């Protein structure tokens, strides 16, 4: 297995007296899809927030390709190569689908106020290759017809696809998907699974937080199980079936296919 992209060490966070995350450690490697599962309130989303800078851990360390992320702002962390999603698709609704994807391209140098005032034409020419790439990405996700629609007018499923198109445009080292299957039909689910596998095949590391266990089983190389803020198990999905603590955490839920 190739080098770790993300290493989480002894991460902890309390809200008042509640230990939302306690001594959490795991790692994700290049090209790996890691499932992060656990019952509601297990601390999965808190881990995502702490890693991406939307929350500040009480202690512990998070390394992205060797760089410490703890203490950095979300935008700085994102620039280091991490893209996270939120539980609902958060498209920029008043902008076009194309603009959403172009913003995913992240050409920060072109967003200088001064350059935009003085070199507008040159910037527009420089943007052409990004537009071409964005069009190809929209095509890949079947969104070409919606290129110039306001993102806010898309259906829930289309917004999910736009989210993936945006990530594809950004090409981060690490992608964290917070419940990508929320409100998604089976056909779209297959498409999302393919997209995740393609990211991994391109060498990107992916963490998927999800309640949909069949999806986790089919998509992830490895699974981390959390309960009450702690990592209680880690390994292949098949290997966790017999794990008493995992079964217990899920209240005896059948982890095989339903």
């Amino acid at each position, binding site marked *: 297995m190739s080098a770790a992209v993300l290493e989480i060490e002894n991460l902890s966070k309390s809200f008042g007296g509640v230990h939302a995350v306690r001594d959490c450690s795991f790692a994700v490697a290049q090209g790996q899809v890691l499932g992060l599962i656990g019952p509601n309130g297990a601390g999965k989303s808190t881990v995502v927030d702490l890693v991406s800078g939307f929350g500040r851990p009480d202690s512990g360390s998070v390394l992205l390709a060797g760089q410490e992320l703890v203490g950095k702002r979300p935008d700085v962390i994102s620039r280091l190569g991490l893209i996270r999603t939120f539980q609902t698709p*958060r498209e920029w609704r008043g902008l*076009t689908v194309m*603009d959403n994807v172009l913003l995913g391209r992240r*050409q920060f140098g072109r967003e200088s106020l001064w350059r935009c*005032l003085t070199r507008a034409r040159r910037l527009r020419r420089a943007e052409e290759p990004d537009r071409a790439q964005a069009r190809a990405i929209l095509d890949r996700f*079947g969104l070409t017809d919606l290129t110039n629609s306001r993102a*806010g*007018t898309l259906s829930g499923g289309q917004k999910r696809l736009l989210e993936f198109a945006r990530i594809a445009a950004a090409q981060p080292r690490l992608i964290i998907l917070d419940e990508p299957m929320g409100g998604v039909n089976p056909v779209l689910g297959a498409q999302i699974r393919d997209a995740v596998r393609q990211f991994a095949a391109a060498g990107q590391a992916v963490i998927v937080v999800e309640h949909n266990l069949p999806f986790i089983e089919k998509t992830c190389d490895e699974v981390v199980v959390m309960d009450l803020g702690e990592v209680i198990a880690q390994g292949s999905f098949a290997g966790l079936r017999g794990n008493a603590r995992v079964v217990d955490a899920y209240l005896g839920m059948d982890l095989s296919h339903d």
Partner: protein
Amino acid sequence: MYWVSVVTEAGIFAILALGLDVVWGWAGDFDLMFYGYLALGSYMTMVLTIGKPIPPVQYIIGWRLPYPLALLLAVLVVVALAAVIGAIALRNLREIYFAVTTLSAVTALYLLVENYTPLFDGYNGVYGLINPGQTALNLTYNGYRIVFLAVVLVLLALIYLLVERLSASPFGRMLRSVREDEHAAAAYGRSVFWAKYRAYLFGAALAGLAGGLFAVFISAFNPSAWTPQELLVIYAAILVGGRGNPRGVIAGVFVVYIGFIELTRFLPSPASRPEFGPAMRQILIGLLIILMLKFRPEGLFRERLNVDGRRGRRLGGAGVPASAGEPTGAAAVSGQADAKEPDARERSPQ
């Protein structure tokens, strides 16, 4: 000459409104300090051009700089003040909290100027900037007024082109993404504060410029010229014209200032109640805001989308979502905008 004066004033306010639209329309920050920047620009232009005060009049600086240089310096001073206010108000405060903070700032500035006479002579204000350059250009008084109108309109045209260019640029796109969802913008590497801060300074610079022009227009400036209500008229103009669309903003200013204010001039004005006219005008502007929010929340001109392939075509679809922090009625705006969205096309992906 009356119409020359009316159009000049509208032109100056159009420059101000273009600046405010960058702050409110694009970045989504409901700034109540904004008229204070016009006031400061106006005061600074005055004290940099009219020379030493003659006691008992008192004010700071008292230089006799050429008008264009004074204008430039005034803009820089305004931007410096905006840099301080923005650094405090934009860092963590949003929506109503930002509005309240900026309202406090402008109130503090207002009270300071009114009560601390060594600054700008308190309630009397400063005066005496009468037609800079009139003798050099060898113009009559009326001729000067017409030339000044031309200067204002040329500046307005230049600023319009600049703002329109910025609107369609990557900066405009990035700033709007911050307005639409700042968490998502941060998750994609944008510093929300830095984006809003730059927009704020740019807007304040235009307000300072408008202030410097306003100083020539009225040749005197005192606290009664910048009561807080003035700003609401500018907001009304942006709302009527189309928030986020520079062309709409200019149209809105001309509609509200010339159409509306001039029409209400013909309201009865009983001699015993001189406050009737202005009060009625405020009420009617309030009514206009409510009616616009109810029936055409996106304004006369909808915010334009960057259309891939061709530029500048307006498309149907949802109006600009109203971020909170707008005046009362914001909820109605977003409700209306949603209601007008075409049914989301359900396309099950193959």
